[in-house]
């Protein structure tokens, strides 16, 4: 996974290259290509219609510790969601880089639940198969989901192995020494943790009807 160097440490030459790239890929989008109700539907899912009242002040982008790794800052994501740029939003790295630290959520002057908006967009992207291929974060989420659905608890060693198998098995070599160190200190377990009443858990998780996509 290649990420652009953060703005603060970017060399002049590099920034020039990136600027040039941006100019090339920018294109006009006509209103007929947009999904105009997208914003309202997302706002509806993410607790209250507040998303639509965003004043574009940029506080979310300023407080976000990961903003400089994102392809669109959180402020832009909100603007684009509201205007109906569904494909761009659901294909973005931004929604996956959000680490749920809730900085923006507590700072937002309009009390928009931005972290919940990001979760809504993540779910949507997964359901529609939109996320960037081989990006480890959605794969981690999916593996975690499967792990817990099966056992009711998560076993970190199993989760990581399944993540690396699906993304890049060579990472296992890189992480082997760290894994061994943790194992020697009793911090990585090999046996799988699980709940006793799996039947009860499965009734809860599998009984409900799946939500329709947005």
């Amino acid at each position, binding site marked *: 996974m290649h990420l652009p160097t953060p703005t603060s440490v970017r060399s002049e030459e590099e920034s020039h290259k990136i600027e040039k790239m941006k100019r090339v890929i920018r294109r006009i989008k006509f209103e007929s290509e947009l999904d105009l109700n997208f914003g309202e539907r997302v706002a509806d899912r993410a607790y209250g219609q507040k998303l639509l009242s965003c004043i574009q002040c940029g506080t979310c982008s300023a407080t976000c510790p990961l903003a400089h790794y994102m392809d669109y800052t959180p402020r832009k994501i909100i603007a684009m969601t509201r205007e109906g740029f569904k494909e761009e939003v659901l294909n973005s790295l931004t929604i996956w880089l959000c680490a749920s630290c809730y900085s923006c959520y507590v700072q937002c002057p309009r009390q928009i639940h931005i972290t919940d908006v990001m979760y809504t967009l993540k779910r949507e992207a997964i359901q529609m198969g939109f996320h960037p291929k081989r990006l*480890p974060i959605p794969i981690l989420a999916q593996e975690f989901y499967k792990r817990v659905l099966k056992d009711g608890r998560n*076993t970190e060693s199993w989760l990581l192995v399944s993540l690396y198998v699906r993304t890049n098995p060579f990472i296992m070599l890189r992480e082997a020494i760290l894994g061994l*160190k943790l194992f020697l200190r009793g911090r990585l377990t090999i046996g799988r943790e699980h709940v006793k009443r799996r039947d009860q858990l499965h009734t809860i*998780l599998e009984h*409900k009807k799946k939500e329709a996509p947005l």
Partner: protein
Amino acid sequence: MRYLYYPGCSLRSTGRAYEESLLAVLKALDIPFEELSDWNCCGATSYVSIDETDAFALAARNLALAELQSSDSTINLIAPCSACFLVLLKTERYLESYPHVREKINSTLDKAGLHYHGRVNVRHPLDVFVNDYGLENISKHVKYPLKGLKVASYYGCQMVRPFKTFDHSHYPETMDRLVNALGAEHVDWPLKTRCCGGSLTGTIQEAGLRLNRLLLKEAEKRGADIMLTCCPLCQHNLECYQERINRKFDEEINMPIAFFTQLMGVALGLSEKELGMHRLFKMPSLKQITHPKGEMVNAW
């Protein structure tokens, strides 16, 4: 008042030292507790990224089980891991605030013979120690005051945000007050609630390492001897990737990272083994911290 204790998955693997030290300290202070029987994973941030109803239902099962286990009118459920704490708290709050969520989740739980009535109060152990048990009582139990030890308390994000429970969401001070009660000094630093990146160190490592480097460097610059955390994932990130951060960014950071309960245990005179000190990468020596004269010379 009897507490229910929800360990969470991380405290059974990478964060084992947290569980060991927490339980040892609870016992040393005679705080009664019992484990929530047959608890399941809280779902963390991943579950809600896939399916929201499942995520709430998964967390709500734990709340419903707590109501089965205890007959108290308000059940205090201790969740030490920040992610578990937030997920359970968020479920508790959202079920309370949004009737449509509550109905949906309860109809799901009903199918499995469970029901959530809203009696659970999710608590973080830090809150329990400082606000229920009290700093004065803790000071009374301190056998070895940690004189001269400079501590940077790192709270992480999810314990203080988005809900304001017992402390400020950007500049909390509960852990600092606790550290002072143990006889140590706290370091004022601005990054105490800045994100460590969570699982990014395992997925997009580049980004994760940069975030952790920032935290470690700042704590070092402010003269901290040790960083204390209250989350197994923060502890894992800050400790286990330190070597890699040093190599990648050409730094020489050498910062011990412990759980706040471990330092409490040290001051209370518990043994290294009870506190899970042997599970840390940089093993601090208790003899040096608890120097007979009560003075400490760069022991960690």
